[in-house]
């Protein structure tokens, strides 16, 4: 009889122990950082297409599933695209997975990076700030134009950086100045309203209006540079 009671008691003890546990959701809520702890080295980088942000994910040390999934809505991960999966490896006695997000040329303050392991996600919100040009360069294949209404000078304005490409959609200021430093009647047409392109190029066309002026004409392109306002000039001759 004692044996019988022992069996019954043992059985119920096992049941109690086996049926009392913390639910997974609660466990994840309580132990989330132990499962996945992710960090970024900065919260904003220039949108120059080359700047990188480092995302470091630390997962449970004895994890069997070591794959960490990274994704973003902007920019691209190195050697990948919008998503990136990598296996965590032991670094300094910790299981670490690292991803590098390369900025795009679009300026954004809502860049989301999601680091995921099964059941647990970590999301960061970072900024791609505008990458201003270091140099501006204005070029034209036309050297001289006739003094008549409607003469055109095609212009290629390049925004250049020492590293990367200036962010998209930057605009330049164009001016046409006579030799005596006075303005001439003109118009710039064809300038892309979206601003600079992915190569930093802004196309525009100088249209001459009625004028009696013959001589050298300076066309000046000006833009806010990284550290200062930068400009460049090209010279056109107006002839009869």
């Amino acid at each position, binding site marked *: 009889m004692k044996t019988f009671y022992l069996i019954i008691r*043992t059985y119920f003890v096992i049941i109690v122990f086996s049926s009392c546990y913390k639910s997974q*959701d609660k466990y994840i809520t309580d132990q989330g950082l132990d499962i996945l702890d992710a960090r970024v080295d900065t919260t904003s980088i220039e949108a120059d297409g080359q700047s990188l942000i480092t995302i470091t994910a630390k997962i449970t040390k004895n*994890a069997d599933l070591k794959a960490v999934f990274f994704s973003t809505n902007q920019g691209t991960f190195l050697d990948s695209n919008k998503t990136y999966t990598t296996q965590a490896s032991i670094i300094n006695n910790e299981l670490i997975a690292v991803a590098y997000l390369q900025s795009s040329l679009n300026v954004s303050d809502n860049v989301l990076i999601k680091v995921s392991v099964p059941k647990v996600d970590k999301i960061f919100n970072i900024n791609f700030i505008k990458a201003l040009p270091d140099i501006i360069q204005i070029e034209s294949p036309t050297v001289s134009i006739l003094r008549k209404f409607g003469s055109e000078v095609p212009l290629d304005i390049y925004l250049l950086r020492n590293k990367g490409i200036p962010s998209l959609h930057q605009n330049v200021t164009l001016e046409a100045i006579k030799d005596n430093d006075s303005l001439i009647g003109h118009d710039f047409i064809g300038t892309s309203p979206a601003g600079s392109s992915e190569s930093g190029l802004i196309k525009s066309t100088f249209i001459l209006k009625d004028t009696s002026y013959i001589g050298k004409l300076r066309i000046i392109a000006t833009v806010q540079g990284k550290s200062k306002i930068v400009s460049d000039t090209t010279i056109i001759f107006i002839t009869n």
Partner: protein
Amino acid sequence: MKYQSYKILFKLLCLALLTIIPFVNSKVCFAQTKTDTFNLKASYPFDQKFILKHPIKKHDSIVYANLFEMRKGCIVNSLSKRCKKNILDTLLKDIEKQLLIKGAKDTLIKDSSRNLQQIMFELEIHEDTIYTPYKINLLRRKIDSLVSEVKTFDKNILMGLVNQLYDTLRIVQFKLYEQELDSSGIQNAMVLVFEIASVLSRSNNIILRERYSNAFLQLQSLFNPDSYFEKRKSPKLTQFIDSLNSHRQDSNKNNFTRQDSVNVIMDIVEQKEDFVKLLYNSMASNKLEIKGHDSENVFIDMKRLEPNKNYFLILLGKTKIEKMDEILTALYDGDYNLSKKLYDEATILNSKMLITDIDNYCLGCSSPLSFSFQKFEDFYKYYNVSIKQVYSEMFKKKNKLLEKKLNLSECGNISLSTDEINSLIKMSKECLKCKDTLWQYEWLKKTEKNLTLSFLNLSRLNDTVVSYGYAELDYLGPILASEINFDNRIKNLKTSIETIHLLKKLIIFYNSEIVLLGGTKLDVDLSEELTILENNYTALFIYKKEVEEIKSNIKKIKESIDKVVDGFNGFLMPSAAMVTNTYTWGFDARTGFAVKPDFGFMGYGDFWNDSEIFGVSPYIGFHLNFRPLNTDVPWNDIVGWKKYFSFTAGTLIASLKEEGKREGLIGNTSIFTGLGLAFGHGVRLNTGSVWYKRFNNNPLITSKRVSATPYIGLSIDFRIKDIYNSFIKLYN
């Protein structure tokens, strides 16, 4: 940390299993060695009453059959509590009878050899200053109420104790009431008021406590008649009052508190007798009904036997004591020592050893059971109550028989001369030729063999041999003592009377014929002898009738005495015994009685784990009964609590699988284990746990562990398949 806990638990479980396995093995081995025992189960289903046909020797008169439950191993411990209880109940009933006799006749009968349990019983008596019939009635109601309370409390204890308490209270009440009536001028009445203080079930003690503390008196009623009723006698009412006053004085002086009062304690001293004594003591009780027997078998109305139990059946018969008449006569004569001596001699002669296979069964831990008569003192008390009066009646009859006298007369001397005899013989021979009348014909027939002798014997008519009927007149040869009885004497007298009648007619005929021939008449008149013989015949006939009547009465009394003597249980002796068991040997039958399939619906879930698991599912499984159950036996016929419980296990039809969280214990299937509570053969309520594999809470760890969630379900015997199919349809 939790993982470690599970490991420890698992080890504990393994340890428990290892502890059980040797026990189970030993039980199996033990059972297998008992191939020589008669297996009741082979013939009769357990849990059902049946008639046992048991072979007996010729001339065995089986009067009782007692059945005992045995535990494996030693005999002394073989009786179960249930069986002990029965024995105890019987003993208590015996005590009750004795007390009732005590109350009614003031004559104590006590069977001292039985070593009756001493039951200490202390009753507190309260005084009521105003005694009225109303109070007495009130008292009775209170006692009845108390008895009801005790009965309510006593469900788990021996009911015999309750009966004992009830009767005791009644007796004490009766005594008090009786004494009050006898004792004029006493105004006080004793009121018995108790309350139940506590029930100590383990020690079988009931503690009653006085309800009022204003006054108390202790009446100690020790239910050992020797020490109390015989020696101490019942306390008188005046003694109660004196004692009460004494207690009051003590109370005033010493601050006698309620706690100092003696609680009412009913205590059964643990029975210490060995198995043989238990058997012996319970010979007259706990018996099975004998349905009858023929020359070869006895038919016993067996009780329900429980499965997997060992039983010991003993058949008892009455033993006749050869010298019982002498013992009883000596007792009637008041010769105690002689009767005791004769009784002891008979006891030695009739002692019996019973060798049964119980010795093999107990693996040598017992010796053959020995039985003997009860002590003479017990028989003496039995004699005083049950036999003495009847026996004295028998002696009165015997004396009456001795006083009966038979008055017979002798005939006078009849003498005939030789010539007269020769003349009569001649006449008779001539008469043979005529034989006109009936008497002549009868005379001819009578004298065909030896005519001379009939006449010669006439001279013996004055002898008591003929006149008292010891011999007939025609033949006076040697008389055998065995032939001298009333019937023969009456027959002889009748023959002699007939002979005298014929002779008388012959003489009349002779005289008439002789006169015609000129001869001399015979001067013989047999009328007086004839009258004497006829009177003797009548007297003897009446005497015989009266004697036979008295003897018949004596015989009846003797028979009744024999019956009364037979009623003394001290002469019971075992005729046969057997050890048997209800173990089921066949694997199919054993498992069929123990394991049964069932199906049902269950609800499961962990409400305390954020209801992570919750659902209902049909299931199929089986249950393992705590005891074998034969479903052919009506549920209510099966005794014991074990029939209600079972282990149960099976599989769920629905899956508990949830990706990343849990999966079935085996594939997608989850199993359950639990305990079942049966309401009948068909339906049982189950509860226990559903077992499944739970993923580690850490989603990056792929290990799984076995977990459980409680369930409650209702199952139906799988043999009711139609219901099951209906369930499945509903579920689908």
